[in-house]
């Protein structure tokens, strides 16, 4: 067990983390490059930056969005995201590992905060999953990944909570810790290739949509030419 745990925490973690970072950099750059190419082609190069920025920020701080539609779902989703981001990054044990590994450290969550944030993340993940299953429109739209992601995200939080807060035998501890690390590794690998890519792409959404409406000039002739429709009546 210890061998597997060392493997999962060591080289396997580094590989998975690298895949995530490189994968996210790749899609982020692809998005930027796509937007840049489109912008260069566009006939109208004016950008309503104020609108782009304000609409983008509205979703980063979606406070005024909450009450308007599906308020319970929205509040749960926001609270879920808070725990999901804060605990893995600022948990004392995680920061310590980073410090030992790369020598860098940063502020950590107080013990109580980490405790309650972990519980809230587990609770809200379950609530969101149930909400997705019960809500008629959500369940109709849902793909496999939409159900699997909350379950997958639950595993490291659940196992981490057991390891940190519950008295268990050393063997059980190692088992749960292995599950904790392996599930986190799997999450890292999947992030760039699934909808969780929104963690880096979301800031670009408003820019992409705005540029997408900026059409290149002379497309009429180009499309006609490609489709052999030159001179064809309307």
């Amino acid at each position, binding site marked *: 067990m210890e061998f597997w745990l060392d493997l999962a925490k060591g080289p396997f973690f580094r590989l998975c983390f690298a895949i995530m970072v490189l994968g996210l950099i790749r899609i982020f750059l692809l998005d930027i490059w796509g937007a840049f190419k489109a912008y260069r082609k566009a006939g109208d190069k004016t950008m*309503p930056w104020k*609108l782009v920025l304000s609409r983008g920020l509205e979703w980063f701080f979606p406070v005024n969005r909450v009450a308007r539609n599906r308020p319970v779902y929205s509040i749960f989703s926001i609270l879920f995201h808070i725990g999901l981001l804060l605990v893995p990054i600022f948990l004392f044990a995680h920061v310590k590992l980073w410090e030992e590994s790369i020598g860098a450290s940063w502020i950590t969550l107080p013990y109580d905060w980490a405790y309650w944030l972990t519980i809230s993340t587990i609770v809200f993940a379950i609530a969101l999953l149930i909400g997705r299953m019960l809500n008629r429109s959500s369940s109709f739209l849902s793909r496999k990944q939409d159900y699997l992601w909350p379950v997958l995200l639950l595993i490291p939080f659940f196992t981490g909570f057991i390891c940190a807060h519950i008295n268990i035998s050393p063997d059980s501890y190692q088992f749960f810790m292995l599950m904790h690390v392996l599930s986190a590794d799997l999450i890292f690998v999947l992030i760039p290739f699934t*909808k969780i890519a929104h963690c880096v792409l*979301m800031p670009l959404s408003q820019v*992409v*949509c705005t540029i997408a*409406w900026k*059409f290149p000039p002379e497309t009429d002739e180009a499309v006609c030419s490609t489709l052999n429709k030159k001179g064809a009546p309307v």
Partner: protein
Amino acid sequence: MKTTLITDEERQKAFKSIRKPEVIERQKLDVRFHIEDFNISERPRRFLEAFAAILKNSNYKMALDHFIRMSAKCSRCATTCQVYQATGDLKDIPCYRSELLLSIYRRHFTIGGLVKGRLLGSGYLTDDKIQEMAESFWNCTACRRCSLECPSGIDHGLITHLGRYILSEIGISPRALVVSTREQLEGVTKNTSAIPVPALKDTLEFLEDDMFEEKYVRIKFPIDVENADYVFFPAVSDFLMEAESLMGTAAVFTATGDSWTIGTGYFDGINYGLFYSDRMLERVVKKVDAETKRLKGKSILIGECGHASRSAKYFIPTYCGGKDALPVINIMEYTHKVWKEGRLKLDPNVVTEKVAYHDPCNIARQRWIIEKPRELLKAFCKNYVEMTPSGDKNICCGGGGGTVSIDEIRPYRTTVGGKLKADQIRKSGCEILVAPCANCKKQLRELVEDQGIECQVVGLHDLIYKAIIFDDSHIEKKVAQSESLPEEK
């Protein structure tokens, strides 16, 4: 704001097709709107060819790539879509509609999709899917309200726009739009309402006489004046159906003395290309630009029409010179400007009814013109009420995206598309609803009629025409009276 589901009876009425069964069979296409006969062979292959050609020559690809990586399927968009709220049909959820096209893109235009498709031998585009898209993309009013509610920032309106464009390239577009655009681009009259120039001149002369009788002011519609500050392009249907909007515009220019003109070479602001084909959008926009340049006009002035304004404002720079393109303004911007400068006076005692303002999606969604018409209305309408939501979050009239021009789907528009708007109008209790858009006005009039709401739908300049105060120097009545008085004695 929420609405209730339509009843079964309303559903039957809304979705009833008036197309003949033999036409549906011949065209192998079961949709509710008329379509001209077209080549029905190998539709999926031709759809993919058109899709590829458009992707190659446009900027859609990067948006589709972004959307397929992002889509979270949270269904928030369902809560704002007035069509889904009325039908309750899950296939009307904007995200589902977008997925119809995104799945084709993913399967046929991405490496992952191609490999997966080949390995599993599945996901090929079928004719059934094309039929579903044809129906679905024209159920949508392209109001883009759902795009504001998508946390991932997916613009479902853009996908509907693209879907309609691809379908049009294989011949699937509402006949009403195609026939009008054909007349506009290739017909003798060069406008969507097929108004010949002599008839236009007669109409304008008649309106000038009418205005003189009412106001005793020589209000003119200048024709083919060169070097004017503004070359005016209203929705051409205004010349037939919205005389008071035109009279209001002419009255404002008479009051200010600024130079403007209507060109007889081309005088139609309507651009159905925005609704079904970027190629047509480009061609129509270029006609507006060419006519303004023919007359050596300094700027393009668009009348009270949402989609005409958006087409010109956002696509004249695209297709006609970028930053060097002619400036485009909407008539409401002009009127607001001259009112602010104190060059336009409005009588606050003329309009006493309860007035509300409807934001046309094509004008307000991008926060272009929201407050200016409200400031004008509040200046002379004593009893102004606000409808909520409004501004960039407004509720569509239900006839957006060109659907208002498809007469055969009126029952759909007034029982499904416009249901939420009807609820909003009722709730506001307004007696006059101001809608500065030819399409919105037509739809809203049909909506209040079919829904039994007591409300008059007018344009902003209809009311301005009523309330405008002319300087004494403009009014000829006093001269006429003083001259005629001695004779009477």
